[in-house]
């Protein structure tokens, strides 16, 4: 668990590495964020740091939100997010969090809302096979059997079916930071990240399971 940063997906391009290889990268506007609240075990029962991102006009926020931000002296911010931390002693209210917290080559986890695909059928949502399109077949994109007959007389829960797809929070793990631009608060992350351009992302150092210590 470590402090992450909020950012906006700007789009994708490619950069060349030292050996001349073209690397696909996502450009992310990461921060600048402000620490808006520090929660400790004594006051809140757990310790975490809340950061805010994306400056907006004061009229976009409610009085309650503005009052909360005023405590840390932060300008009106649209998005607030907490990061659970073991030790919060080094953080104080109003402190800035910039893209510099990441190093080149570091692995990160990127979370955000994936692209919504609406009500999607079996082929798109669950990679089912399609039926024959010709030779008299009327089974084109149908699901096939969804279970046995009178026994059990019902469809088992969890049966994969058509339905709403996408527009859920997804985390892409262990992506490499290719470049950090501290002046403009940009991160170049290798590969694709969830959502379309303009999507809000949360970037945290990679959660490496079983490799700690």
């Amino acid at each position: 668990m470590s402090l992450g940063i909020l950012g906006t997906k700007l789009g994708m391009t490619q950069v060349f590495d030292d050996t001349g290889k073209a690397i696909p990268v996502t450009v992310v506007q990461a921060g600048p964020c402000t620490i808006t609240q520090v929660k400790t075990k004594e006051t809140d029962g757990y310790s975490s740091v809340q950061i805010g991102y994306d400056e907006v006009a004061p009229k976009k926020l409610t009085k309650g939100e503005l009052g909360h931000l005023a405590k840390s002296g932060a300008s009106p911010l649209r998005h607030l997010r907490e990061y659970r931390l073991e030790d919060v002693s080094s953080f104080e209210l109003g402190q800035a969090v910039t893209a510099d917290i990441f190093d080149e080559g570091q692995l990160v986890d990127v979370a955000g809302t994936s692209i919504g695909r609406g009500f999607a059928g079996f082929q798109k949502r669950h990679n089912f096979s399609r039926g024959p399109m010709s030779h008299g077949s009327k089974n084109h994109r149908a699901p096939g059997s969804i279970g046995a007959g009178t026994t059990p007389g019902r469809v088992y829960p969890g049966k994969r079916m058509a339905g709403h797809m996408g527009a859920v929070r997804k985390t892409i793990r262990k992506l490499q930071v290719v470049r950090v631009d501290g002046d403009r608060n940009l991160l170049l992350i290798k590969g694709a990240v969830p959502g379309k351009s303009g999507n809000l992302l949360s970037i945290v150092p990679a959660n490496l399971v079983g490799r700690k210590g």
Partner: protein
Amino acid sequence: MNAQAIIRSIEEEQYKSDLPTIYVGDTVRVGVVIQEGGKERVQPYEGTVIAMRNGGINETITVRRIFQGVGVERVFLIHSPRVANIKIMRRGKVRRAKLYYLRDRVGKATRIKERFDRSK
């Protein structure tokens, strides 16, 4: 700066400014950087440009040549550091944007008429 301008500024750093104007049908000599046991050297590859793909930083050319009786096509990412230089050897006169028909031809039929109104 908006998102597009930021991405463009990242790409702009990597564009090569010394590239000649390449057209489909030209005969070009491409200097390819290859690494051999820790040493770098530039190997020339000469052939006819049979296709171009304009994609900003992702711009590529497809160069075809006959090597030991076998047709070889290589796609070069022209802004890549692996492509050391590109030299135009000959300007060709063609009426297609993609010269894939050359794949079905051998010998004399693969010749492309030279044009002289474009500088090398």
